[in-house]
């Protein structure tokens, strides 16, 4: 492979897969808001990351 193609392939992988990993980690660390708005209806129980 030529150097330019390798560079752009790696950059694409780091950016896109990195964004996926970062968002997944963010979700795992903060699965839900600290305080829900008041008065949720009957089916409003929390659904934490399972």
């Amino acid at each position, binding site marked *: *492979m*030529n150097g*330019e*193609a*390798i*560079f*752009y*392939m790696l*950059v*694409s*992988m780091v*950016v*896109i*897969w990195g*964004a*996926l990993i970062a*968002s*997944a980690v*963010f*979700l795992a660390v*903060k*699965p*839900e*808001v600290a305080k*829900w*708005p*008041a*008065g*949720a*209806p009957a*089916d*409003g*129980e*929390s*659904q*934490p*990351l*399972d």
Partner: protein
Amino acid sequence: MSASSGPAATTQPAERQQWSGQIGFIISAIGSAVGLGNIWRFPGVAYENGGGAFMIPYLIALLTAGIPILLLDYAIGHRFRGSAPLAFRRLKKWLESLGWFQVMICVFIAIYYAVILAWAASFFVFSFGQKWGDDPSSFFYGDYLHLADTAGFSSDYISGIVIPLAAIWVLTIAVLALGVAKGLEKANIIFIPLLVVAFGALVVRAVTLEGAADGLNALFTPDWSKITDASVWIAAYSQIFFSLSIAFGIMVTYSSYRRRRSNQTTPGLVVGFANSSFELLAGIGVFSILGFMAHEQGIAVSELSGLKGTSLAFITFPKAISQMPSAAWLFGALFFASLFLAGFTSLISIVEVVSAGFQDKFGWSYRKAAVSIGVVLGIISVALFSSATGLYTLDVMDNWANNFCVVLSAIVMSIAVVWVLRRGRELAFHLSSLSTFKVKTTWLALIGVVAPVMLLYMFVQTVYSLVTEGYDPAYDAWFEGLFGWGTVVACVVGAAVMTALRWKHDPDRFEPWPPYAAPPARLTAGK
């Protein structure tokens, strides 16, 4: 008095189905987004539009239109807790017709999408003996499809397509009849990891093939001259838009099955980036194989043909599989299994949009909706697409359903929500109140300005081209009229008819949560 505004029933609807948890929803949404287009469309589009340089408009399109509209779908479905027709009606009564328009789009997409899965299932079996022989093109069009010389109607039904197609509809009905948590979610939880393993194994093998580097050079070497070409940007927005399953009811329906207290935006980011991650993986796999194929033939990758769509999957790939130095059957089986799994998890999401619409409107149980709708769509699908002219019908219907109807639906949705009804701030409030990643004015600008402008440009360009030049000179005008423009007319008429019918349960007895207090200046806007 219209039937839809007639006396409301007093009985309460059954409790809304729910995903078992956040991961079930995320995997199902990824299953819907990752489909055939990720494998057979993205690599070719990226290659034709600047290679490595294409990734810049692609990423910008993802961040400025793809993810913002995905979140708009989530916000509408989750806040108004219904299938597309119900959620849009609760947003504004007259918008119910947009919901049914999206349901009708899903009807048309489902009936032709299923037949591609039938082909993939057949080719999975054919892989074990490379039944396509030395000439995959003749095999696909002749021996397998029995393709007629001209487009039209044919009573020459192909048992090799009818049987797998019927089986796919039976499987679809079975999954949907089990409900959201036990059917849709379980199917995705089984199939998506299988897809990742199968396709991952295929990519690992592909990159170690002789000549793979030539393919990756062709895909990733940037052509910076393309970056100033408007058509490249349109291609990037189109790819993102069609790939993410947005604006035709799927994500509205899926998010309506989430509990009230559930994080909205971060799962949206995960789904959006997971879809693009799979596309990138597909690009690496597909172009490694194309590089190998070019190497075997002693030509450059640029001299290869059939780099997208059905010809890539059912002609170019079988050709490459036959040239594999070892375990060609395994390679073929992995590829067609991946194609099937990616497509099936999308198909069930498309049919669920139709099923959910009927459940909400007529109070049907999910079993009744799955069986009734699945049987009707299955019969139409077999009747139209398993004959000797099925490929032509599929080609024309796909072009109008996707490039015309879905784009139109997205434009109407964003303009209606942001500009006509001025409910964008309410939806931003909804997302931010429940989510760890907040959306603000930038999101409103993206869904209200950037996305509609790009979509409008795409739409005008498509319509102008269809009106002035037609779609494909190989088709007669009556054929394009019937299956192309006819699809649009059927979506509009179907939406109008369904909107006019009476709801089983009063759809308007509903209070969105969390309650939103509009700023004083906007209290009357759009009401």
